[in-house]
Structure formats: structure tokens, C-alpha cells
């Protein structure tokens, strides 16, 4: 299984456990988001995200479309998201 954790309000539940070994967390900038229509062996779609690290390298990360959609819906329903005015 691919687990995907969703934190609707990081002020209430900060990610203190991201780097348990103290090796350091890299920082990057999302440059692209795309769909792989048949990204899994079973033919399900996946969402891919391209991240440019501060040192110029790139990382492509994925999750399934269904998980990403569910996560987006969960975040959109959170009080924190409701405080932000979205463009029409």
C-alpha cells in the first residue's frame, strides 16, 4: 500500500518527526505537476510532481490519482483552507 498522510493544520500538528536521524531535510521548489494515465501496473492514474532542489537536481515524486484527489478534498475542507480566498 501507498500511505499518504494529510495534516489539515500544521500549526496544530507540526511535522516534528520528518528527520528522525538528523540527516537534514532538503528543500525544493515544485516546477511541474502531471498525470500518468496508466501509472500503475493495474492501469490506474498517478500524479507526478517534479521538484527542483536548491542544488539544481530534480526529484520526481508520485502518488496515485485517487489518493491525491482524496487528499485535496480533505485539505480543501479544512478550516485553514477556508480562511484563504480562492480565485474563481
Amino acid at each position, binding site marked *: 500500500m501507498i500511505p499518504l498522510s494529510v495534516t489539515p493544520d500544521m500549526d496544530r500538528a507540526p511535522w516534528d518527526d520528518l528527520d528522525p536521524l538528523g540527516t537534514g531535510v532538503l528543500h525544493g521548489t515544485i516546477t511541474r505537476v502531471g498525470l500518468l494515465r496508466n501509472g500503475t501496473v493495474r492501469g490506474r492514474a*498517478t500524479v*507526478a510532481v517534479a521538484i527542483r532542489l536548491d542544488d539544481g537536481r530534480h526529484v520526481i515524486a508520485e502518488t496515485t490519482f485517487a489518493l491525491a484527489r482524496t487528499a485535496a478534498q480533505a485539505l480543501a475542507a479544512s478550516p485553514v483552507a477556508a480562511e484563504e480566498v480562492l480565485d474563481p
Partner: protein
Amino acid sequence: MSSIKVTPDIDADRWTDLASTALGDIDRVGLQRDPEDGRVYLMAAIRIQDAGRRARAQVVLTEIPWTLAARVARLLAEVEPTVGTGSDDSDDQEAEPVVTDNGDGALRITGAASPADALAAAAAATAPADDQGSDR
């Protein structure tokens, strides 16, 4: 100003121009308000693939404004009717992701597709045709 290129079909528009690329899993996402500019940001933590040593995988943290992320999500949702529906195997739990609230402020969403499936597909889609299987 932040900008993100959205690719509705990576198979048709491959990201072959990205050099020195590693693969990873999206591990968690969350919302955080920046006290400096007052805006809400979508935060994402990525674990770079490290076969058999997930606990030791390098973590990448990234963020984009929630307003931009929401717009990207809407764009992808518009593509939804055309994306693959896959098999209808009765054991394919991915069709119905499960959301679990552990009471620690985070929700956990699980599906059935393996990371190997997804990463193998990403590698095939992003590597140049004459370079598949080599280091990226």
C-alpha cells in the same frame, strides 16, 4: 510569483529535459499559514526512493501557495474522466482509498497500488527512450 507547469498526459509530453533526476514518494501533505505573509501554503514531504531503507530515505520538503495548488487540483480534476480506470479486480482496494484519523492531527490515506508500480511507470515515462534503465 510561483508558477507550475501542468502536464495533463506525461506519456504524450514526457519530462525528458529534467536532468539528474531521482525518484520518490509523496509521503505527506499539509496546510500551514506563513506568519510572515499571512498566506496558506500546501506543504509536501517527499521521501527519495531508497530501496529497502525507507526509514533512512532522504526527505525533501517543498511548498506552494494553497491558492495555486487548489487551481492545479481543479485542472487535474477536469482531466479525471479521461484517466485510466484500470482493472476491476475485486481485491483492488485502490478504487476506494481509506482515510484514517489517528487522533494526532493527521489523516492517513491508504490505497493498494505498490510504490514499485508507480515508480516503474514514472521511470519509463521520464527517461529518454535510449536511456531507460540507466542512472538518471
